[in-house]
């Protein structure tokens, strides 16, 4: 097989350029991209896991601190991937640097892949740092690394698409903070990060099942601890379905030129 040709295809070079540029940016402004989740999650670990958690009995056989770590890491993945694509894309649109990509002979899917990879990359870097910090507070076990990584990847991918869609529709800087503040944060808090579904009254258990973030948190928690409130198969089915829908939504918007072309 001729691997040289594949490695040097123009689309691959374009994609690599986008990802390299994004990686450099994330590292260069680490105090804005990587440090905030570490500080925030350290506070969560200290207050909820340490001060309050010590007063709470074990959930599914794990200490409260151990129980909330996967959820908090997942929260980091969601926030970091979403914020990365929405801010990078909207900034590019606002400063018209997006034109550099639009005039270039890069297929639409490569441009989307470049932006989304930036989101996944930042999510993973932030997630690794938060997992590292959590080790100062508790002992972590890994039940199934493939499920853990699969859930982390699909969630980061899904929220990178979601951030991109928000960035495409956004017409002002206010519009890029509405979704994270009023939709994403409430859904994440109500998605089983801090509690098990079994602790809720039946009505709220049923209502929680409509929250897609619940499935992401549970799949990820299963990867770490081997416990989940919903079946892992169902979690991955929901995650995959949302990711596919958001991918085609993004592709459709790009092809149409919505929010991009005059």
């Amino acid at each position, binding site marked *: 097989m001729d691997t040289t040709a594949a490695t040097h295809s123009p*689309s691959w070079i374009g994609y690599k*350029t986008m990802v390299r540029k994004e990686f450099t940016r994330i590292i260069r402004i680490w105090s804005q991209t990587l440090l905030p989740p570490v500080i925030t999650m350290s506070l969560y670990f200290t207050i909820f896991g340490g001060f309050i958690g010590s007063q709470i009995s074990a959930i599914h056989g794990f200490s409260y601190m151990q129980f909330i770590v996967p959820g908090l890491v997942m929260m980091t993945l969601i926030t970091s991937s979403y914020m990365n694509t929405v801010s990078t894309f909207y900034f590019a649109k606002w400063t018209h640097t997006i*034109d550099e*990509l639009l*005039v*270039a002979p890069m297929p639409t899917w490569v441009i989307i892949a470049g932006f989304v990879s930036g989101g996944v990359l930042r999510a993973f870097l932030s997630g690794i740092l938060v997992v590292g910090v959590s080790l100062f507070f508790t002992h972590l076990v890994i039940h199934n690394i493939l499920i853990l990584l699969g859930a982390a990847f699909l969630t980061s991918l899904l929220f990178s698409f979601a951030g991109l869609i928000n960035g495409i529709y956004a017409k002002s800087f206010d519009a890029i903070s509405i979704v994270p503040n009023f939709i994403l944060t409430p859904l994440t808090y109500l998605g089983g990060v801090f509690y098990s579904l079994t602790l809720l009254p039946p009505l709220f258990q049923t209502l929680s099942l409509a929250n897609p973030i619940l499935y992401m948190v549970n799949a990820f928690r299963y990867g770490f601890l081997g416990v989940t409130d919903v079946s892992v198969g169902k979690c991955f089915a929901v995650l995959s379905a949302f990711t596919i829908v958001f991918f085609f939504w993004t592709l459709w918007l790009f092809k149409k030129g919505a929010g991009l*072309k005059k």
Partner: protein
Amino acid sequence: MALALEVTDLKKSYDVKGKPPVEAIKGVTLSIEKGEFFALLGPNGAGKTSMISIITGLANKTSGTVSICGIDAATEPEKAKTCLGLVPQEFNFNIFEKVLNIVLDQAGYYGISKEEAMPYATEILQKLGLWEKRDAKAEALSGGMKRRLMIARALIHKPQVLLLDEPTAGVDVELRRSMWDFLRELNEKGTTIVLTTHYLEEAEQLCRRVAIINDGLIIKEGSVKELLSSLAHVTLILDTKDPVGEPALHLLRDLQLTKIDDTSYEIRLARGETVNDALRKMSMQGVQVVNVRNNGSRLEEVFVKLIDAT
């Protein structure tokens, strides 16, 4: 000769909330041959930037076709885009990025690796006087340097057709002249250049052919020479060695001299009249002419006449 750019019956409408759509381009047909230096002239809002945006893929067309180097931009957009380079009107690079990185990243978007692009990036930045600034952030550059950076970025993939949207707007005279020299050299080496400009002198100096667009339609197209020949008269400024006395002015009244100051006079020559005839008559009256120059851009006269007529 093969065409570098072919636009057929191009139309573009913009939706305006609560109002009927605005037709920015109303059916433009244009052919530009390879190797040409072509200008698209027109007043503000005539549709010049809309046309450039559609050709480069920054705007969607309503109808019509665009073909770049014989490649249909609608059916093979990526292939067509490899032939094009764009220097937009507004700065559109990341001002926090280093100069060299802006150029190399753009090469990457065109499928050229950093290593492969480096020699030409070096050459082009040196040529445009930006090499010393390669590690500076773009925000630190002067306005003229930023404009040259956009040219360097547009040329990094060696496009066959270079589109420049008002390339010298806001640039001082010296820099404008050096950019003209650079563009001329580029054109002589085979790059087709299409520019939009407000500076009619720019089009007159650089281009062989121009099209005048107004209100979304091409109202005149042809060689600069053809357009200039449509003028009924030519206006020149004559500088004399000494002030011309009233008796001499009276005897030269058929030349329709208009006094600008003591030693400068405007003269309008009808088509068919020569400068030689006028100078001979003036010499016979003892008037010594030390300099003859155009009264501004001759193309401007044609332009104003055509725009006024529409």
